[in-house]
């Protein structure tokens, strides 16, 4: 009787341990996600300043210097400014990107009047103050001095400062100016690298798994290969980066920083993961199905391609997507082959220099400007989105291809 109560107690205790463990794990996840979202969500908005323009239609807009014309228009809004220092302080409220926006505006309105208020990108210092990331202390706030603060107060009182959606984040590549920096280049770089990694590693890994599991005779040699593959899966990823550097860059002389090389390096890294998953999947195909096919006179290859591989495919694909998801978040090997470069243009193809999402996160996390902090979190959100998408694909494929027997 006593032992039964003790046993029940220990069962209850064990259940409680489980619940505590799950709660702790979930709360860590929630804290992490909250942290990323709360600091990253503001990066999807961007501060814009309205500038009063007065450009008549008959003016030849091609002859205008967009920079000086914009500066002139902006300073006209503050007639009280006297000293050069004051004027320079005022102009630094606008982003360097504003003059390009102004140039586009001129080119798109050839032969038309440009009168009234138009919105232009604000500098990241103003942006940080408007978003409340940098707090006001008396007449200054972070890098905003007292001259600028006066002007900001004027602009705000006339409702000439607003948060608009951030079109730069997804439409431009990296930039020295945080307000103009985006992740288009990083996303494309990651995409090219991942597609190449998949195309290279999947067929090689599946064929190796089939060969090792179904065709190779078991002897000392195949044992050595098996042990080595299992060991390769545990090799630190930076070592694969060194391998990629030595082989693809130094030996084959492929272009540095290119997603092609990144993809090939990630393929090397993903290979053992897929081989191991594919071998497990092939092993779990019921031998009765293969026996039936062979009993009907199918050859070994016909049996493998007709039955073993299709039945193992859900498992193989799940393993592949886990491997690819691991590769997408990998930074170290990409550092070794030069994808850590500062690239201002989004790559047009896998041979162009580019960076990748995790590397972009690493670069931005390392930048001193406050405005890069929120972009780091925004890039992490995009990366997480990618991973969720990949995992959902894995689940969908598994459900779709799974067959009962």
């Amino acid at each position: 009787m006593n032992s039964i109560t003790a046993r029940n107690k220990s069962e209850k205790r064990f259940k409680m341990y489980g619940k505590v463990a799950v709660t702790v794990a979930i709360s860590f996840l929630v804290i992490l996600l909250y942290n990323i979202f709360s600091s990253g969500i503001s990066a999807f908005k961007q501060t814009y300043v309205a500038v009063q323009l007065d450009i008549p239609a008959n003016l030849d807009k091609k002859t205008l210097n967009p920079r000086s014309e914009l500066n002139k228009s902006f300073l006209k809004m503050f007639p009280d400014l006297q000293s050069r220092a004051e004027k320079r302080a005022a102009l630094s409220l606008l982003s360097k990107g504003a003059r390009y926006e102004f140039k586009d505006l001129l080119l798109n309105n050839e032969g038309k009047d440009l009168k009234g208020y138009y919105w232009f990108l604000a500098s990241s210092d103003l942006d940080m103050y408007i978003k409340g990331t940098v707090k006001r202390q008396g007449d200054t706030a972070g890098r905003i001095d007292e001259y600028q603060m006066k002007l900001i107060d004027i602009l705000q009182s006339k409702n000439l400062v607003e948060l608009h959606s951030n079109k730069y984040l997804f439409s431009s590549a990296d930039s020295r100016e945080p307000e103009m920096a985006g992740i288009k280049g990083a996303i494309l770089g990651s995409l090219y690298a991942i597609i190449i990694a998949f195309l290279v590693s999947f067929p090689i890994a599946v064929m190796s798994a089939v060969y090792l599991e179904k065709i190779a005779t078991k002897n000392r040699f195949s044992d050595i290969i098996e042990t080595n593959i299992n060991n390769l899966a545990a090799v630190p990823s930076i070592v694969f980066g060194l391998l990629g550097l030595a082989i693809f860059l130094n030996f084959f002389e492929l272009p540095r920083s290119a997603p092609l090389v990144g993809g090939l390096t990630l393929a090397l890294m993903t290979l053992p993961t897929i081989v191991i998953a594919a071998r497990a999947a092939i092993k779990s195909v019921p031998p009765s199905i293969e026996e039936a096919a062979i009993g009907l006179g199918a050859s070994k290859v016909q049996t493998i391609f007709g039955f073993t591989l299709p039945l193992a495919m859900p498992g193989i694909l799940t393993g592949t997507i886990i491997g690819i998801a691991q590769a997408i978040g990998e930074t170290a090997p990409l550092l070794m082959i030069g994808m850590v470069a500062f690239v201002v243009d989004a790559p047009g193809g896998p041979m162009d220099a580019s960076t990748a999402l995790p590397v972009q996160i690493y670069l931005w996390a390392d930048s001193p400007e406050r405005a890069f902090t929120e972009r780091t979190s925004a890039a992490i959100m995009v990366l997480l989105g990618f991973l969720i998408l990949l995992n959902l694909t894995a689940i969908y494929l598994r459900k779709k291809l799974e067959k009962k027997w």
Partner: protein
Amino acid sequence: MSEKLKVAIRNLNVHYGNKQALFDVNLNIMEKEVTSLIGPSGCGKSTLLKCINRMNDLVEICNIKGQILLDSEDINDENQDPVLLRMKIGMVFQKPNPFPKSIYDNVAFGPKLHGMVKSKGELDNIVVQSLSKSGLYDEVKDRLFEPGTSLSGGQQQRLCIARALAVNPEILLMDEPCSALDPIATAKIEDLIAELKQQYTIVIVTHSMQQAARVSDRTAYMHMGELIETGMTKSIFSNPQHEKTQDYITGRIG
């Protein structure tokens, strides 16, 4: 009964690695008869059966010595193609193992694989004929394109028999075909065996002595890898010559 020798097994010794599974087995299998192999578990019945269509080739550590003559040709000869051999010798396994495909595709797999048909109509014919032979056609004719795995256990086993018959074999090997089935499904398979022996030579491994007595013309009793006694089923069961056979069929061992 034609009394024509179909398969002759001569001095067959089989080793799995260091372990010997069959010792000097000699057995004659007559055309268009049912031969049953009985004996306690692990006595080598299935090993013997698998040697007949060279399924043991797939087991790396398996080593076969001796001769198996099919119509006086050695099946282990270098010139023999195991694929063609398995076309001539169909096999039905212990557990029903339909492919994860439709009923139609299950039966059509063999003929398509061996290029036996030129048109869709011919293939349809073979599928219908094979399903009819295995007594399944009337039960599944309205759902030929549903998965084979949706059938009941007994139906699945008859589907496997139809699948084996579709390549038009001469011999049908059955490895405990009823061990996973209930008595009613078993009875149907046994009736089917009685019908099929008009056209095919059948070798059946069974654990059930009653089944051997019901369906087979000849019975071979095996014990510890040795063939102890072989003869007409009636005489084996009524008047066993060997003490071990006597012990087994009276239920003292096994």
